[in-house]
């Protein structure tokens, strides 16, 4: 596929992922878009479009940018170029079957580029709102049998991800949490109390909306499982649905599939208690832990 063809292919999740990673690498180096543009003889605007996944990638540009961003390890560059090549291939939905750290990382990049994150959780507290004790209890409960340094790394990664909500120009998080996730004493009463207090604090943030889906609703449209919908500020970028499984994650950006999830999300939000009642309900559950 040549670049000119892919220019008309429209943004795909993979392009957005590659773009989001390029943005992260650039900002980690403290470089402006303009400075990055100079390295590939391109405008600031071109970098903006690349990072939004709106144009196809030229391999030479990617190599130059990676060098500028200090990515020199041959394997790393090769892996990135592979991802770039895949990104240039149009394809509406992608299946990420990679090792956990990598797909998790790509999700984090995509999530940090979103303007609105809508999430529904039936079993767990949403990742962006978990306390470190809660994360440890969840990882412990999953029987992953991993060395403690790996667990420490995962906890740190998740905590780092949470800074998203308090950064400058943060995205908005609109989460629906099933009452089941609030009642299950993950890590014991002490951990759960800390977690519920964290949710009460979070729901007071201006960019966080929490709604509780009460047991009283009975059967509901979200019963097949947890999912998140990422929405990007740019009008041309499609919403992306993210589904996390035990060994991999799935991204959906095909419109009819995404709309099924949007539809379900609308029902869930309408079935849930309004956000104005969240603090009162959390306090009641906290009293009963």
């Amino acid at each position, binding site marked *: 596929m040549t670049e000119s063809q892919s220019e008309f292919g429209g943004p795909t999740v993979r392009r957005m992922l590659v773009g989001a990673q390029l943005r992260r690498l650039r900002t980690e180096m403290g470089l402006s878009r303009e400075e990055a543009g100079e390295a590939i003889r391109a405008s600031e605007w071109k970098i903006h479009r690349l990072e939004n996944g709106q144009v196809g990638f030229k391999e030479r540009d990617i190599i130059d940018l990676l060098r500028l961003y200090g990515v020199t390890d041959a394997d790393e560059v090769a892996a990135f170029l592979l991802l770039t090549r895949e990104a240039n291939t149009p394809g509406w939905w992608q299946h990420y079957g990679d090792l956990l750290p990598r797909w998790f990382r790509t999700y984090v990049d995509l999530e940090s580029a979103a303007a609105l994150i809508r999430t529904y959780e039936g079993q767990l507290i949403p990742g962006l709102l978990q306390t470190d004790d809660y994360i440890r209890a969840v990882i412990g409960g999953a029987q992953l049998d991993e060395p403690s340094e790996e667990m420490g790394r995962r906890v740190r990664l998740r905590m780092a991800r949470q800074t998203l909500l308090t950064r400058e120009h943060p995205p*908005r998080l*609109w989460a629906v949490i099933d009452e089941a996730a609030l009642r299950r004493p993950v890590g014991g009463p002490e951990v759960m109390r800390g977690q519920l207090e964290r949710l009460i604090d979070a729901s007071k943030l*201006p960019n966080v*909306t929490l*709604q509780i889906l009460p047991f009283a609703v009975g059967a509901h449209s979200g019963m097949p499982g947890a999912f998140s919908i990422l*929405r990007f500020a740019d*009008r041309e970028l499609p*919403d992306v649905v993210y589904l996390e499984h035990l060994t991999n994650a799935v991204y959906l950006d095909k419109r*009819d599939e995404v*709309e099924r999830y*949007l*539809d379900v999300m*609308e*029902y869930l*939000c*309408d079935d849930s208690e*309004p*956000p*104005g009642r969240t603090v009162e309900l959390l306090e009641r559950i906290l009293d009963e832990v």
Partner: protein
Amino acid sequence: MADDWTTRINTGVPNPARIYDYFLGGKDNFPADREVAEQVVAIAPVARDIVEDNRAFLRRAVRLLAGEAGIRQFIDLGSGLPTQGNVHEIAQAVAPDARVVYVDNDAMVVTHSRALLAGDNTAAIEADLRDPDSVMRHPEVRELIDFDQPIALLLMAILHFVPDDEDPYGIVARFRDALPAGSYLALSHGTRDIPARPDMSPEAMAEMGAKVERLYQLTTASLVTRTHAQVERFFDGFDLLDPGLVEIQLWRPDEADALLPGGFYGGVGRKR
């Protein structure tokens, strides 16, 4: 309006709020909405522009109300899905202490408004403007709005979804009578009146309006355009500010480039 037995949110039935969202380039619309919206655009390519112009009219009106008119309380009736530049954002940019209540009868609109707009000095309630008492007696309205102080009532692109047999004039009068003197009414309303447009004949404009009205019969609320005289009647008991009731594009435009007028009338009146 949806029948009582239908679910509160039905994304399979075209919905005016989501069609409007589509016209504004939003992402909260579904295939059924887009199907009607695209047919509207096919008949009336100006539809998108008119909707943009309506948002711009809203911005100018709210800025004036929060600014030189000194209004600190707003009730936005039929507020629609949240978008860029919502009423509280416009008003609070001018007057940080401005209070805003968003009112809509559509469950999805209310869900989104509560999640995305409500906050300090801002509330979103589910109520039907056709029952004014249900709005004015609502506890959240009572909490935020002081009916002894001037209030701005916004009826933007909404009364054309209230047919004559539902007594739109009586509804507006009921609200008006509850407002203290010095309050304001700002409204916009779809029309088939012939604007002085260089690009369209009067016959084409009338035909276009009739076709669009027929399309909206497929949605949850049918569309009734009204004439200048009919729209002006909503301002009974109010003194219209300059330049009166005019095409929204001509109401105190702040850009030098003149926009093509037509589609909606708009005006702002002060209660005597």
